[in-house]
């Protein structure tokens, strides 16, 4: 890895502003890393020319004294974001070849802030998956390997698996992810990087391919908490084109960073001590508690009584919303069309059968079922009632604490194909991540350490709604104490 590709966004920005290196040098270094990293399958499209064009504009801006917040920084963009003129397929065959004529609000915000685009990042199809194995482009291979000498291919997590692998392998200094039920946080944990899902409504969903609209949120993934704060500040903001966008000013999260947690109370939810979780996960959690105490926080036990119902609630609501959102893929307006059938109805069914993968079909079918006449109240309304109780659990807990600390995932990264045979075993990956999604709360994963196999484990912070600053600050306190500098050994 060249010197530039091992730097953080903050370091690249500082070096660029000081004149230590040009934006073009940065873009060229990352463009080369993207090509050299093709065996990881992290990118679905490479756009070196766009990264260079933004770099040249940044170099000109520097010469003119007109620097923008992300001038000189090239980023990877998850394939779920519509990018003008560049294939945007959500990892699905049904959108193969789709070139949007518009730019998503979040990626437009990043470009307006001066950032360039290195390419589009691989992901689970329509963000439905926790291992990147549902992608129409094939799985992303994690740059991490177990230290057992077998070199088994591991998952980088999902659905933002290409995003996570790209940052961990130095194929981008920062990337966009999206998180519906853990899709930023679980891959961040699996690959030893940081990622934050902000409060629902902070980042516009306009131009992001919809999966489950009441849950989908964009967020940054990068190597440090500071980098996440820098990126999130550029990504967030009110957008009249998204009806659920929050009309609030964007806080100065970078300037507000402080790892001094004196006066803060951190809640430890007793229901997150679940059976069957490896001892190493609980050990890193206990270590995280000590780090937060060391930063000045007071630690208190809390209760989130409906935790065990969060996953089943999610697996009713998310498929229901997905079945509705994915109705638009009908072979008429964009994407794949299956021909050779006689009627319009047959064309819809043949197109969707050919274009959707197995997990997407499974979820659309479950969603269709739970919304169908006679079952709507038993499943969907019931789940929305339990969702109210889950949100109430958090509100009651936050009466007695400022933040919540949990593990990010119930295991370290697993091998490809280890969990594909059992959908529910795969769903359990997100057991710690999903409750915050159902409640719309800001939540972040930061690296805690390595397990005995040499694989990263993440710590997970959940904040009150709109308190991204509290989450970032606690993340910074952990980052400073964890001293996590491990990087995957380059084999690709």
């Amino acid at each position, binding site marked *: 890895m060249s010197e530039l590709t091992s730097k953080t966004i903050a370091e690249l920005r500082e070096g660029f502003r000081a004149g230590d290196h040009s934006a073009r040098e940065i873009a060229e270094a990352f463009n080369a890393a993207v090509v050299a990293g093709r065996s990881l399958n992290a990118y679905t499209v490479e756009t070196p020319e766009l990264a260079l064009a933004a770099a040249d504009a940044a170099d000109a801006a520097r010469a003119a004294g007109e620097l923008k917040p992300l001038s000189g920084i090239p980023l990877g963009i998850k394939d779920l974001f519509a990018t003008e003129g560049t294939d945007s397929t959500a990892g699905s065959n049904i959108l193969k070849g789709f070139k949007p004529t518009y730019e998503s609000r979040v990626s437009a915000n990043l470009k307006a802030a001066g950032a360039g685009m290195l390419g589009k990042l691989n992901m689970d199809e329509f963000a439905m998956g926790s291992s990147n194995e549902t992608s129409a482009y094939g799985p992303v291979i994690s740059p991490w390997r177990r230290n057992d000498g077998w070199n088994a291919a591991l998952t980088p997590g999902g659905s933002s698996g290409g995003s996570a692998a790209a940052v961990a392998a130095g194929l981008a200094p920062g990337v966009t992810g999206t998180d519906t039920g853990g899709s930023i946080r679980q891959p961040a944990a699996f690959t030893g990087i940081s990622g934050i899902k902000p409060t629902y409504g902070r980042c516009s969903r306009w131009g992001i391919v919809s999966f489950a609209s009441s849950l989908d949120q964009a967020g940054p993934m990068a190597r440090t908490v500071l980098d996440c704060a820098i990126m999130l500040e550029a990504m967030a903001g009110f957008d009249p084109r998204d009806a659920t966008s929050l009309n609030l000013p964007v806080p100065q999260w970078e300037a507000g960073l402080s790892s001094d947690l004196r006066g803060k109370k951190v809640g430890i939810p007793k229901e997150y001590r679940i059976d069957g979780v490896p001892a190493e996960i609980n050990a890193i959690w206990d270590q995280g508690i000590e780090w937060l105490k060391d930063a000045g926080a007071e630690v208190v036990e809390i209760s989130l009584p409906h935790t065990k119902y969060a996953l089943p609630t999610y*697996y009713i609501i998310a498929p229901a919303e997905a079945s509705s959102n994915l109705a638009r893929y009908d072979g008429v*307006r964009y994407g794949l069309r299956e021909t050779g059938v006689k009627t319009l109805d047959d064309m819809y069914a043949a197109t969707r059968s050919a274009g959707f993968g197995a997990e997407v079909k499974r979820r659309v*079918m479950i969603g269709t079922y739970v919304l169908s006449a006679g079952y709507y109240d038993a499943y969907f309304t019931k789940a929305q009632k339990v969702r109210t109780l889950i949100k109430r659990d958090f509100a009651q807990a936050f009466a007695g604490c400022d933040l919540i600390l949990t593990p990010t995932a119930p295991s370290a990264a697993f091998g490809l194909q280890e969990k594909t045979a059992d959908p529910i075993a795969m769903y359990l990956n997100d057991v710690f991540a999903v409750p915050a999604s159902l409640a719309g709360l800001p939540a972040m994963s930061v690296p805690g350490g390595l397990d005995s196999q040499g694989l990263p484990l993440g710590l997970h912070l959940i904040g009150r709604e709109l308190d991204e600053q509290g989450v970032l600050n606690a993340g910074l306190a952990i980052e400073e104490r964890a001293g996590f500098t491990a990087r995957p050994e380059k084999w690709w």
Partner: protein
Amino acid sequence: MARGRPASRATMSVNAEQVRHVAKLARIAMSDAEVEAMVPEFNNILHWVEQLAEVDTDGVEPLTAVIENHLRLRDDVVDDGNCRDDILKNAPDAQHGFFAVPKVIE
């Protein structure tokens, strides 16, 4: 779908005929083998989510807004449009400024 057992029963399960019906509602063509494979998967997931029946939700309102927000109104003026060619640009079949589909009426 009206053919299932009453929705209030604690455990519901689907058979191949019902899966075929859901596939039809979802407009996904499925072979008989795919339907047969889907039946146990479908039932496993349904039985798993049915643990929500244990939760007492009497008097609980279903969640409608995850973060409190009010729906905005905008001025009733045209602020977009004149972009027909952009809209048709990704169509598998566009003819004469329209989306073209297989003939619906013989």
